[in-house]
């Protein structure tokens, strides 16, 4: 059956873009090495061969120019998908993103539309050090006007990408390198899933309960969803049933699924590969404290990168990234 066909996340993303380019001639792709190379992380593989250099455009290393150009092209009715390789590189063009792409709709009183999808790679775990391993999605979720998508599986990646392309607002789409299913980088096998061949959408703002459970709620996204699921498997052997929630989108955020889960399990652990302070874990903790404090049987716990740049050396990097073992140990301590 078609739905049993399994894809890597990279192939699922490329297929989503392909199907939308076929459906809508206003959709085009630009970025560094998105053409013949097919994207450094494979998100545009096969598109250049099919659509050519006019619709799959390799750009110079000029992020301010080509991301600003995406904004300008979107204002004219085009629907650009623009890739900026690593999220770590966004500093060079932040003005065009957080001052223009994110704000122009509001400043125009809702009259001007910017249907841009901005894609980039996140995450560490392969010793690429501090300038190539960050997540940073919370920075963009913090600025009003950008939708923020962070998938963890191939199925989600395709549906969320099609939703992103059809959205009339700017969408930032983050894919984790360790989930793309690349031949040259170890990836979590659970990110490879059955993916329907036909186009489908996944609405933004709907978290996915990746594993139901009654004893503790673990909220996460991207690679940490899989680490949480690995931990939940271990905990189940000890009779602890963890509910693992994959947020899938940070903006809009599905508060309801999180709050309802905590009301059921009475315990909350938030796991993030982004920095600890002022980030996603604090946001989720605050929401639960505001809306479900009376339901908690244990203090809210957070696991995230402990406010240091991602280190290079393998034991150092493994120490700062939340592991399945640390997640399991934290849950055990919450059950006491």
């Amino acid at each position, binding site marked *: 059956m078609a739905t049993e066909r399994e894809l890597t996340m990279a192939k699922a993303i490329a297929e989503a873009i392909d199907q939308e380019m076929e459906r809508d001639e206003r959709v085009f792709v630009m970025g560094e090495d998105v053409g013949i190379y097919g994207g450094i992380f494979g998100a545009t593989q096969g598109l250049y061969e099919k659509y050519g250099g006019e619709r799959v455009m390799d750009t110079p290393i000029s992020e301010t120019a080509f991301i600003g150009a995406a904004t*300008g092209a979107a*204002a004219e009715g085009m629907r650009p998908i623009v890739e900026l390789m690593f999220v770590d590189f966004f500093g060079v063009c932040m003005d065009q993103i957080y001052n223009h792409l994110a704000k*122009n709709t509001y*400043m125009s*009183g809702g009259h001007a539309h910017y249907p841009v999808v901005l894609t980039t790679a996140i995450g560490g775990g392969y010793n690429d050090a501090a300038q190539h391993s960050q997540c940073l999605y919370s920075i963009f979720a913090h600025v009003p006007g950008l939708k923020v998508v962070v998938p963890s599986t191939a199925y989600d990646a395709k549906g969320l990408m099609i939703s992103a392309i059809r959205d009339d607002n700017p969408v930032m789409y983050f894919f984790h390198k360790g989930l793309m299913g690349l031949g040259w980088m170890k990836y979590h096998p659970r990110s490879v899933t059955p993916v329907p061949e036909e186009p489908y959408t996944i609405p933004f703002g709907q978290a996915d309960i990746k594993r139901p459970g009654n004893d503790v709620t673990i909220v996460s996204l991207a690679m940490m969803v899989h680490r949480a699921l690995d931990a939940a498997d271990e905990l189940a052997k000890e009779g602890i049933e963890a509910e693992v929630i994959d947020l899938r989108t940070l903006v809009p955020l599905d508060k309801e699924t999180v709050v309802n889960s905590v009301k059921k399990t009475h315990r909350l652990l938030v796991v993030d590969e982004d920095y600890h302070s002022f980030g996603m874990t604090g946001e989720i903790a605050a929401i639960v404290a505001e809306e479900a404090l009376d339901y908690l049987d244990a203090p809210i716990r957070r696991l995230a990168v402990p406010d240091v740049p991602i280190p290079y050396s393998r034991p150092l990097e493994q120490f700062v990234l939340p592991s399945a073992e640390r997640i399991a140990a934290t849950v055990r301590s919450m059950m006491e």
Partner: protein
Amino acid sequence: MNLSKDQLLAMYRQMWTIRHFEDEMAAAYMEGKTPAFDIGSGPVPGEMHLAAGQEPVAVGTCMHLRKEDTVVGTHRPHHFAIAKGIELNKLAAEIFGKVTGLGKGKGGHMHLFDVEHKFSCSGIVGASFPPACGAALAAKKMGKDWVAVAFAGEGAANQGAFHEALNLAALWKLPVLFIIEDNSWAISVAKHQSTAIPDNSQRAAGYGIPGVRVDENDVLAVYEVVGEAVQRARRGEGPSLIEVKTDRLYGHFQGDPEVYRPKDEVAKLKANDPILRFGNQLLEQGMATQQELDAARDAAKADVDAAFAYARQSPYPAPESALEDVFV
């Protein structure tokens, strides 16, 4: 130059519309701000950057543009907006923060958006170049002969965005014009203190595109040079860089003490006012009578007065509407 009498008078009238608009705005801006200047008080709060003296660049350029052509302006945007044809009432109302404004009062003086007239601007120096490239790219992709114009001050030509955009536009042969208004001052820093060459249009050579300098703050001189660049762009021959020497009669912002500016500079500039010179030129060449010039000037004043009255009497937005329009 094939300009009819009607077109010349229209240019003259438009320059006066801009000048009256800026003068009315200068006066309205100071209401409630004296004797002690408080930037947040009065009917027009926030910063205010006026373009009196810089009318030739906007009018000389936009005479060549159609509604379908895109203009991206700067933090000093009123003259571009008016020349591009934005409705004066909506423009004034936006600057007064009223619900009837272009962006329902959410953008204000530095952030004017008019989808219908394809106009936008930005409060960030140098930020106009990339989106203009994008508009030009879209026109090319859609097979239209539309052009895009990015305006910027001479200080913005030192921004990375300028150089990236020129390279991209040249590489992709985009129908875009980069037009630099050289008013000699980047706030208080003189051009020679920030740019090693006297003429930014020379920088075009680095990207293999035409670069032209217009040395006079003259609307017809701008019209002529821009005309060639627009035609070139419409023919699919790619971008151009144009720098125009112009004069900022007021401070960088209203309330700017201008301690950096030589005391006699403004007096000299006013003696060489580009609108008065243009009017005299039309008289000398027999293209218009004094009566016709006066009528154009009065009509411009009436338009501006009506726009300010509309802005003043328009209601403020409901406070809770602040929560709307983040997404469409």
